[in-house]
């Protein structure tokens, strides 16, 4: 007869197998597309037309695909720079504006506060494609058409409703007493915001930053419409040019290389900021 301890040990073993099995299986499905693209980007030119499986290069690694990618437009570095400029600019502007707006909505009392807030949130329901034409005209009037700064401003605008909402919630979660204690301690205005409150709303800022970065980095349609010169293309727009290929033949190798290049900064930003998702920073503040 088996003892209860053995039964328990067996059960624990099966539990562990199931737990890790499901985890590994799920992770596989998420990681496989990355792996396939990444491996395929190292195929030599001669293999780039082959069926996708197996994805790895058969006759040795080669950087043909990356060289091909670099031959489009103004070179991959220029477009990478364009994308980074627009995305990072979007992140900073979005964070700066939404922190101030979120703080204001959370802490100050002013007429029509809730109506204004609802109005801001309501703009999320407007598909931005529908306002692209007016935006285009406004940017043209401002002399910002076909400029990366103009594109950045459009992205910030699109990003703000969600970000203000996030930051208001983040500030709402900070107990009023902490702010009052800081006021008694003599921290006022900007000092109060930077020294005491910003560290406490860091999870909110991280979320806003990640979303702003990813959305600006991946955005295609507005960039396609608003940017007219080749040199200003951001990566997503460049990728369509690459996909269209030359003389109608699609250069699959260059496409895979482009995908790999585009994924890396996203991963980097996410890994950099994800630790701020960590809960429990507030623990111990009150109660």
């Amino acid at each position, binding site marked *: 007869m088996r003892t209860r301890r053995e039964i328990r040990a067996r059960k624990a073993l099966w539990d562990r197998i199931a737990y890790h099995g499901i985890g590994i299986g799920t992770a596989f499905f998420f990681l496989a597309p990355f792996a396939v693209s990444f491996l395929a980007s190292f195929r030599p030119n001669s293999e780039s037309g082959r069926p996708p499986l197996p994805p790895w290069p058969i006759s040795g690694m080669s950087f043909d695909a990356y060289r091909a990618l670099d031959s489009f437009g103004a070179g991959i570095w220029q477009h990478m720079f364009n994308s980074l400029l627009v995305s990072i600019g979007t992140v900073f502007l979005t964070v700066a504006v939404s922190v101030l707006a979120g703080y204001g909505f959370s802490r100050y009392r002013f007429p029509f506060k809730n109506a204004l807030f609802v109005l801001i949130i309501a703009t999320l329901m407007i598909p931005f494609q529908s306002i692209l034409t007016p935006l285009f005209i406004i940017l043209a009037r401002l002399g910002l058409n076909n400029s990366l700064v103009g594109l950045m401003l459009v992205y910030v605008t699109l990003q703000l409703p969600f970000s203000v909402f996030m930051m208001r919630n983040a500030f709402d979660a900070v*107990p009023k*007493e*902490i702010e*009052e*204690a*800081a*006021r*008694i*301690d*003599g*921290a*006022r205005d900007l*000092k109060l915001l930077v020294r*005491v409150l910003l*560290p*406490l709303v860091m999870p909110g800022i991280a979320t806003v930053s990640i979303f702003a970065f990813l959305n600006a980095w991946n955005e295609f349609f507005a960039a396609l419409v608003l940017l007219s010169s080749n040199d200003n293309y951001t990566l997503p727009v460049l990728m369509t040019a690459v996909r269209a290929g030359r003389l109608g033949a699609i250069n699959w190798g260059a496409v895979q290389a482009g995908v790999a290049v585009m994924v890396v900064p996203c991963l980097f930003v996410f890994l950099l900021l994800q630790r701020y998702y960590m809960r*429990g*920073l*507030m*623990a*111990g*503040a*009150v*109660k």
Partner: protein
Amino acid sequence: MANGISNKSVVLSDIRKSYGGLEVIHGIDLTIEEGDFVVFVGPSGCGKSTLLRMIAGLEEVTEGEIAIKGRDVTDLDPSERGIAMVFQSYALYPHMSVSENLGFGLKMARTDPAEIERRVAQVSAILKIDHLLDRRPGQLSGGQRQRVAIGRAIVRKPDVFLFDEPLSNLDAELRVSMRIEIARLHRELGNTMVYVTHDQTEAMTLADQIVVLRDGRIEQAGSPRGVYEDPANMFVAGFIGSPRMNFLDAEWQGDGTIRVGEATLEAAIDGGSLKHGERLLLGVRPEHIAVAEPGPERITAQVEFSEYLGGTRYLYCQLEDGQSLVVEQRDGPDWQAGERLSFAVPEDRRRFFAEDGRRLR
């Protein structure tokens, strides 16, 4: 006190506060002497916190004037008033270590780092938190957090300490020890302290002066003993003391006596304004009622049930006409439910109130 002004630590003159159109503090006048420990008590929502926060400068004063150490601070920033506050929820900065928490106010005031370090060390020694200086608030127990919060107030060397129910998040045992700690701090530092609490024991044991508030007005201010033994009105008499004072319906006889149920009691009050047969209330604290031999001056009541608390016993009784009476007994036999007893009330323990709550003297 010869030099009047300098002995006054906090002076509130006709303080009013409205939220929107609703007035919640209706003209408070209060003078707090230098070094006094003043406790605000009152039912929930009576404006204790609001008043304290107005002294702190966290809440704007709608009307009136606040002076601290003879200086009008009504429109000054909280940090410029010479006050420090300890919150019920501690309100520590969660992203800073204990020593950073303690030193934050000094840092904001651009104090020399060496001086900050010295004062933080000194205060953490007083509060016995010196072994915790590198921890974050999240890694502390409730009592330790409260010590840090108190330490953060002490470090700034304020003229006045403000406490808003600082102990109500702690468990009973810790509460007692922190209460003693606060009393010790007050003795050692000698600062003026203003303390808001729900807890009668805290109020009684800590206070030099108790301020009883109701609906944004001061009902009575005085020493714990004065408030307990000589209440200004029925509200104060009923609010201070646990179990609360018994109030029995009585009738003025016109000849210096009152009738309570079957009993006739002497009443040492000025009956000039009272009509014969006018109704009033007799107030007696449970501990002043004693079981006695029957007689004309005795109130008779039936025991409903009793509670034994170890050392003391509360008898919950009912008078003939259904009024209830709580009696505290220190010793004597156990009384069974249903027994009829006679109770004596010493003459100097009787308090009389008019029907509208005024004290009759």
